């Protein structure tokens, strides 16, 4: 454990990622203190440029403060990004493990099931799910999770299949360890690296799907989100770039931070690197 933390902190990527992610989280926490007013409130003149009328990052088409929206939106975007990725990982890794390790008929059934989900355009399915379940933060997380797992499941399956054939796994089976223990302790840790990387990209995708949903008016009406802000500013991007650029930058930074953390975590979990 000590080795893992030490390696993580020795990677510049890990430190930068952690600091960025920390800043975003800090923003989410201190939002009500910095901008006590609701981000939906029209506090200024519409189309104010950044710095005008006392608004740091300008105002949107209805005169809402962009800076306030970004700070408040951090909560929703991070929550949705992480929670829906976690949901997708749970489903994807579980199904991928079962189908990759069991093989045969079980594998065939799970792969066909995955393919059904893959043939439906994921964004359409997400819209459908949210529309049926009525938009709220919970249903949005669930819907995004439900449409994001198939690639993770396929990746996990492929990884598990190759690792399961390696001799140390057979050796573990010959040691009399139970199937669950073989999979959880030997197969998964050796298959996890690309899954971690794919997972950190899924966070980015989830934030973007949420943006799309909010743009369609299917976001949670109680929470401001970065996606909603981009969506509403997109139509006037030629006249008022700041309305979509600042929330876009926020998404970019968050995604980069999560990717960096994922990369460093991957190195830290590999004893070949962490012990070198």
């Amino acid at each position: 454990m000590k080795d893992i933390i030490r390696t993580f902190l020795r990677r510049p990527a890990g430190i930068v990622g952690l600091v960025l992610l920390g800043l975003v989280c800090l923003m989410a926490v201190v939002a009500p203190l910095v901008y006590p007013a609701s981000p939906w409130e029209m506090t200024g003149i519409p189309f104010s440029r950044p710095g005008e009328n006392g608004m740091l990052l300008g105002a949107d088409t209805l005169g809402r403060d962009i800076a306030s929206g970004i700070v408040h939106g951090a909560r929703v975007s991070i929550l949705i990004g992480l929670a829906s990725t976690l949901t997708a990982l749970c489903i994807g890794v579980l199904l991928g493990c079962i189908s990759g390790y069991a093989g045969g008929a079980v594998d065939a059934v799970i792969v066909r099931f995955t393919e059904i989900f893959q043939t439906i355009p994921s964004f359409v399915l997400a819209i459908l799910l949210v529309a049926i379940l009525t938009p709220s933060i919970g249903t949005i997380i669930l819907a995004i999770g439900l449409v994001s797992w198939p690639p993770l499941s396929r990746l996990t399956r492929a990884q598990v299949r190759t690792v399961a054939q390696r001799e140390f796994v057979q050796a573990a089976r010959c040691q009399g360890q139970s199937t669950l223990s073989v999979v959880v302790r030997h197969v998964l840790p050796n298959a996890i690296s690309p899954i971690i990387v794919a997972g950190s990209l899924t966070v980015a995708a989830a934030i973007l799907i949420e943006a799309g949903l909010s743009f369609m008016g299917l976001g949670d009406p109680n929470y401001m989100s970065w996606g909603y802000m981009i969506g509403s500013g997109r139509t006037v991007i030629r006249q008022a770039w700041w309305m979509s650029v600042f929330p876009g930058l926020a998404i970019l930074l968050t995604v980069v931070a999560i990717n960096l953390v994922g990369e460093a975590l991957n190195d830290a979990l590999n004893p070949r690197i962490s012990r070198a």
Partner: protein
Amino acid sequence: MTETLLAIENLVLGLPDGADRAHAVDGISLTVNANEIVCLVGESGSGKSMTAHAILGLLPNKVKALNGAIRLSGRDLLQLSPREMRALRGGEIAMIFQEPLTALNPLARAGAQVAEAIRTHDPSANAAAVDGRVQELFGQVGLPDPATLSAAYPFQLSGGQRQRVMIAMALANNPRLLIADEPTTALDVTTQRQILDLIRSLQEKRGMGVLFITHDIGVVADIADRVIVLRHGRVVEEGPAAEVLSAPREDYTRELLDAVPGRGAVRKAESREAPLLEIKNLQKVFTTRQSFFATPRRVVAAENINLVLNRGDTLAVVGESGSGKSTLARMVLRLIEPDGGEILFDGAPVNAMGREALRQFRRRTQIVFQDPYASLDPRLKIGESIVRGPMAFGTPRSDAEAIAKRWLERVGLGAHALDRFPHEFSGGQRQRICIARALALDPICLIADEAVSALDVSVQARVLQLLAELKAEMGLSMLFITHDLRVAREIADRIVVMQHGRIVEQAPAAELFDTPRADYTRRLLQAVPGREFFASRERAGAAV
């Protein structure tokens, strides 16, 4: 014979910081004359491959030549520009690699790859001439039906055929110096014999200089004019092959010679104990279907296999790759399910065992795999890997740790190995760890699936020694699977020879070596490298 083709003078190759030593090669000087075969012998890590790669300018990025010179007919290769080096590679100097499978491009036809080698160095050659040359080369390296084979893809060729294609490619531009980096290590004994003969005869015909790299003294005895023994990047001994092998001056050379397995007396004792493992009429056929409409490919891995392992005996199963011997080991443990037949362990049918019975059976029958790099979980500490076996059978962690410590000490590693990761150990050490892991479960039967095949000869000898000791101490029965008759001779009481999934011959070890009945067994015996040399050495030893 007198013309010096290649002269390496005081070559020093520096390793990056943090490597186990500062110099991969530390002041090596050697010469290769035209029309002779010089063998570079040494264990892994002795710097023999690095030396070869330095000649062709193929060193890894972090390894740098710090000192010395490599002269080909007087020109220092270390001073050449990349462009000049490219002209030399595959032109005047050619190389054959160890793995014929990975050294060929899987997506290009064999003939086209050889043709490319010709065209690279002679862009003006017309297509018909190149084609004729390819056919001629294929004929020279003994490939039957050159026209068909030059249109074949690498996966359609056998290992030996691929290595012949590699040799054809190396010879394409009439090189003056051929570097062969363990060209037969990945091949079966009978194929190895053919390739060695081929290299020898081509060398004589063309008057090439050959630098032949190997770890197997048997091969050296068969092929070398001169020998250079390397250790830790330094030359230990060099001289004409006959001299070095028959009257080695250095202890290390003697050690290498003595480590070659299969020279001691054959074990005569075969117990009359009750059978522990009985295999009856075992059948297994693998069918792979390339596409929905293609006829499935059938590979027979086991056809009517019958054999018996008595308590306290060692039964060696010998065969070339593809003979089904590893599948047999996996079927015994039910890692692969057989199609038919019966496996009886202590009288109980293994095929019919339920989950718990199978678990108990696997505890008593442990396996040591071939590849010590693949058979340890790279993400687990050694101690953890060993401890999990006993813990799966209810031993508390503290007791399991004590067991692990005891076994690590017994196999010669010491308790400090517990907290380290597999990549921190050498191949031989890892194989010891695998043995410790198997024995920690207190088995009565040990299956060794090519357990020493991936190791250097000297390490091999020590691991075999360890296995023999442990067997005597614990009264283990052993099923020993190997492609190497020399190893089988060292350890087995009884030997089974397999070919294409069938048992060709089955006899007590002494009988098999003295009076082999099957043709195939005789062929295998004749193919053993260095056979004549060691036989004469033994006679000489007996006479003294």
